[in-house]
Structure formats: structure tokens, C-alpha cells
């Protein structure tokens, strides 16, 4: 029994690490640009395709592909921010949200046009090898992914905390106008934050490629859980996203085992609603932050 509990907990935490990584970029973009990016999942999907392509065409190992996919995602993020997001910043909040929604439809269907609806997957023999930690069986790739996810989130956190650029990002999130008065080139911060958000979710995409297949609609399936994680953690809170990501992973695992797989999502949505009712700003949301994003 204890063995099962431990196994469930570990499986949940490991899945949660990926949720966290998917959500960190989303929460950053939200915190700084105040844009709820519905196309976030599609960036992940594109990164998965890119990884697939590098693997099958050029035999690049997915973990090596990080070095290629991340810079590409960064540039793609800069391009979309410049082409689209920037042009919506002065628009009403809702128009903004729906521009990103249309962008997600656009990217999904471009992917469909280019790569068809077929699922693509890669097979890396070592991905399925297993480490035994006591009675618990841990898949190598999931463990590595978890470590990379947490280290990356910590690195982003440290960057925000200890570098001038990071401080400028936080300052911009808290008060755009004041940040401009401090000499911060806010447009550059936006572009950089969006690029960083894209690179982070792309990293999640690369990491999951050895685990699950991709098709043009994969991103859409992941995005819902990322939204839950971001809001649960407190919008704009990096630590919140990590903690909430892990929490959702664990809740999902236990709910699936004890209540049945078909209700696992129901359970975390209910949990989410309850948390919001009790703590309207999320687990780590700053007090008053829930009205900060009302433009």
C-alpha cells in the first residue's frame, strides 16, 4: 500500500514538473504583458514538431535539440510579439485575448496544412529505461525532464531576482508607466519576456517529445491545464506556477487511482474552483493582484 502511495506521489510530481514548465512562461507573459496567451500551447506543439523533424531528418537527440529549438522558439516569440501582440497592447483586454485565440487557430491549422493530422512520435531507447529508487520505479526520461524543469524554473526565478534585467521585468509587471520613467525600454522588456515565455514552453515541448506523440492539436489539449496552473498559483507568480503545477500533477495521479481516470480532471477543476473561492488571488497571488490586470 505504502509502495503504491509512494509510486503515485512520484508519478504525480514528475508529471507536475512538466505542467510547471508549461505554465512558467504563460504566467510570466501574463504578469508582464497582461496578455492571456491562448496560443501558448501551440508554441509547444511547434517545438514538438521541430524536435521530431531534427530527430528524424538529422538524427539529433532530443536533449541535444534543446540547443537548437530554444533559440528558434526565442526568435519566433520575438517575431510574433512584434507582429501581433504589441499591436494589441492598447486594445481592450478582451480583444487582446481573442487575438491570441485566433493565433492559436491559425498555428494549429498551418501545422495541419504542413504536416497533416497524423501523429508523429520518436523512439529513443533510453527514454524508457527505469531507475529503481527503493520500491518506486522511475522512468529515466521523466526524471531528467523533471530535473530540467525545476532547474530551469529556478534559473528563471534567480534571473528575475538577481539581475538588472530581471528586476526590470518585475518592475514592468508591477507598473509599466513607472518602469518607463526609470529608463526601462518597456517594448524591449515585452519582447524579451514574450520570447522567454515561448522558449520555456518550447523547452517543455522538446522534453515531452520522447514521451508522447504530437499532432497539430496537441497544444490545445495541454493549454487548459496550464491555465489552471497559472491561475491556481496566482497569476504572474513564478513560484506559484511551480507549486501549482506539482500540486495538479499529484492531485491528478491520486484522483485517477482512487476515484477513476475519467474523473481526474474533474477533481482538479473542482479543487481549482474551491481554491479560487477561498483565495481569490490564487495560492501565491499578491493581494490586490486580482484587480491589477483590469485595464
Amino acid at each position, binding site marked *: 500500500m505504502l509502495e503504491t502511495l509512494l509510486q503515485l506521489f512520484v508519478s504525480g510530481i514528475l508529471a507536475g514538473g512538466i505542467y510547471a514548465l508549461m505554465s512558467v512562461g504563460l504566467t510570466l507573459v501574463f504578469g508582464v504583458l497582461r496578455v492571456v496567451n491562448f496560443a501558448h500551447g501551440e508554441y509547444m506543439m511547434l517545438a514538438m514538431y521541430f524536435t521530431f523533424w531534427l530527430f528524424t531528418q538529422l538524427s539529433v537527440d532530443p536533449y541535444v535539440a534543446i540547443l537548437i529549438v530554444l533559440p528558434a522558439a526565442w526568435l519566433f516569440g520575438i517575431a510574433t510579439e512584434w507582429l501581433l501582440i504589441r499591436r494589441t497592447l492598447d486594445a481592450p483586454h478582451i480583444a487582446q485575448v481573442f487575438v491570441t485565440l485566433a493565433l492559436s487557430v491559425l498555428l494549429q491549422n498551418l501545422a495541419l496544412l504542413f504536416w497533416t493530422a497524423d*501523429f508523429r512520435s520518436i523512439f529513443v531507447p533510453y*527514454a*524508457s529505461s527505469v531507475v529503481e529508487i527503493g520500491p518506486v520505479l522511475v*522512468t529515466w526520461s521523466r526524471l531528467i525532464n523533471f530535473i530540467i524543469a525545476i532547474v530551469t524554473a529556478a534559473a528563471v526565478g534567480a534571473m528575475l531576482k538577481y539581475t538588472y534585467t530581471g528586476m526590470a521585468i518585475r518592475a514592468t509587471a508591477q507598473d509599466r508607466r513607472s518602469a518607463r520613467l526609470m529608463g526601462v525600454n518597456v517594448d524591449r522588456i515585452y519582447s524579451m519576456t514574450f520570447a522567454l515565455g515561448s522558449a520555456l514552453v518550447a523547452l517543455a515541448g522538446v522534453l515531452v517529445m520522447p514521451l508522447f506523440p504530437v499532432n497539430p492539436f496537441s497544444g490545445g489539449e495541454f493549454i487548459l491545464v496550464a491555465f489552471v496552473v497559472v491561475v491556481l498559483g496566482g497569476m504572474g507568480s513564478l513560484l506559484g506556477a511551480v507549486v501549482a503545477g506539482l500540486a495538479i500533477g499529484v492531485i491528478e495521479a491520486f484522483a485517477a487511482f482512487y476515484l477513476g481516470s475519467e474523473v*481526474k480532471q474533474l477533481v482538479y477543476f473542482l479543487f481549482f474552483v474551491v481554491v479560487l473561492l477561498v483565495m481569490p488571488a490564487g495560492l501565491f497571488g499578491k493581494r490586490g493582484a486580482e484587480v491589477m490586470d483590469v485595464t
Partner: protein
Amino acid sequence: MSLKPMLTSSLLGIAVLAAAPATAQETIKVGTVFPLTGPTAVFGTQNFQGVVVAAEMINDRGGVKGKKIELVKADAASPQAAIAEVNRLITQAGVKILVGSTTTAVAMPATQEAERAGVFYWEGAAIAEQITERGFKYTFRVALPAAGLGTPAMDYTVKVVAPTLKRDPKDIRVAIVGEESSFGISMADVNVAAAKEAGVQVVLRETYPAGSKNTDLSPLILKLRAANPDVLIATAFFNDAVLLGRQMKELRFVPKAYIGTSAGHSTLTLADALGDAVNGTFSSSYPPDVNPGGLTEQARADLTEFKRRYQEKYKVVPSVQEVVGFVAGWSLFRDVIGTAESAEPDKLREAVMKLDVPIGSYINGWGAKFDAKGQNVRSFATVVQWQDKKMTVVYPLELATAKPIMLPAPGSK
């Protein structure tokens, strides 16, 4: 940004609309109603492309009664879109023959709309029983309904797995898991009912979310490990088939036999995703490569040509869904339209009711004979096994191309 680009592009749209193809007299128009966008686009596209190759093949052989088949493509990604597209095909493109639909959510409203308009609807692979239960005059289904597709899994358990294990079927423990979709639910229901009939014990029945929402199926596998079944019957689309395959291995859950029910377990790329671990997995499925001995000479030739053309055109090897699409198109073009007095729905119906195409006449071993409800009774499912990373028919024995291997699965307790 101004209004201008928006205006020009909408005008462009209208221009494209107006320029809809002026059609030549000597063609028979057939509308295709498949989901080509959205989450079910995978299977919709595979079915559709099978139909396309069938049309090209028939046209290259001189068409039907001297007329070429002209496909008019639609995209029915939702019930609402299915209604709009069926109406468009009928009134804008003047189509009187439709072929579709892959999923129940498309088939139900699409056939309904066609029936109202008195248009002939040739259903390929949508499996819900109710499609042919509504007393429609013009709706016919080529492939088998849910029961037909699901039961071979249980038949196989009783007739092959149990004897091989030297056990009475009543001592066999099965677990039935499936995804939360029309397809998954139907398959599970059918197998649970069949298990009851055969006296097989069902030790776990579980449904998990459909689509690619699952990132981790280890809780399900832990449950399976605790329930300790001899046989696992699973319905999963590709994502979950891959996850199940990988995570069962990782968590060291090895049932004596693992039987999927078509879909993900009968997708060729499963071998790319799982590597050697795919070997030994069964799937009750539309027949892919059946034993050529079970096919007529013509069907063998058709099969070779279909495979060559499909690979040339789409750069992938066709599998079960593509084959079903092809058979749907082929039977419609060659045998229904080809034998009907005219391409009018009433005449087509007459022709369908008269059909008597023996088993083995189509490339997957099917034949055609329709009951009063419009269901083809000469379609059947087979059980395939992944051997050497290829799907091989192992059941029923007449069509089998190989004997089952790895049964009980190595490592099972």
C-alpha cells in the same frame, strides 16, 4: 492597419466562391463528408485519402460506365459543420451521392440531413449502432458497427488465449479499459457484454479522458497491476496507445495477452513509437494485410495497386483506416454506381439491395451484402498481432497470415 486588407481578402473569398468549378457533363459527382480539421482529423483524413485513391483508380480504369468519378470535398469537423457541408454539397455542388464520415458525431447529423434531402449516403467506418437503426432509406454502412469491431477481442480471448494458457475461459481474468469517446465507450460496452456471455471475469473496467489529454497513465497501470488481469483489452487513440505501451513496460505490468481494439493499436506508426516493445501486442481491428489466399485474384491485384498508389501520392504506407476508406469508395464506385440503372438515389438503393459480392472480393477480405437496415453483413474484424514490428492477421484462422507468438507474453506472471 486599415479596413482595406480585410475587405480585399473577403472579396477574394467571395470570388473563389463564385469561381466554384464549372463541371463537365460526363462525371458522376460524389461528395465526401469527413472531418479534415480538428481533433478527429487524423482518422477522417486517412479515410478520405483512401476514398481519393479509390476514385483515381476507378477513373484510370475507364471510370464507371464510361463516366469519371468526381469527388467534391467537404470538411465536417463538428455536427454543425456536417449539416452545413452536406447542404452545401447538395445544393451548391449538386451532389446526390455522399460518402463519409469516420466519427459518430459527424455521421449522425450528416446522414440525417442527407435523408431529409433524399440523398444517398454511403457510410464507411463510423461505428455507432444507431446509425443504421433509424429506418433511413438512403443510408448504408459498409464497415461493421461497434459490436462487430469489438467482439473479436473477446472471441480471441476465449478461443485462442484461454486454450493456449490451458485454462478454462471462466478462470480468465480480463481488464477492459478505454478512452472517453463514443468509440471507446462502445468498444468497452461490447466487450463487457461479450465477457459476461462467455463467463469471463471482468476484474477492472476503467475509462480515461479522450484526446491527447493524458500525460501520465501510471495511476491506471498501478490499478491494473493491483487487479492482476490475465488479459488487457484497451481502446485508445494513438497517444494513449503509445503511453500505455511505454508505461506498462516501465512499470513492469505484463498481462499474458494485451489486446487493443483498432484505432491507436492498429496505427502503423505505433511501431516507430514503441520500437520492439510493440511486438506481441494484439489488436482487434479492421483487416489490414489479410492472407492473400483469402482474396480473389482481382482483389489481390487491387490491393497491390492501392498500396503502390497510396504510397506514391501520400508518402506513407496505408494502414487499416486508409484501407477501410478505400473499400468504402471502391464498393460504392464499382459495385453500387457501377450496377445501378442510373446515379439517382432510388436506383442506387435498388442496386445496393441487390448486391451480392462474395467475401474476399475487396482488398481487406470483405464482401458486400446488405440487410434491410442498410448494414453490410459481409464486413468483419480480424485480430492482428504486431510481429517483427508489422501487423499480421492471426485470427480468424482462414485469413491469418501467421500464428500468434509471445503468448503468454514473456515476463507475465
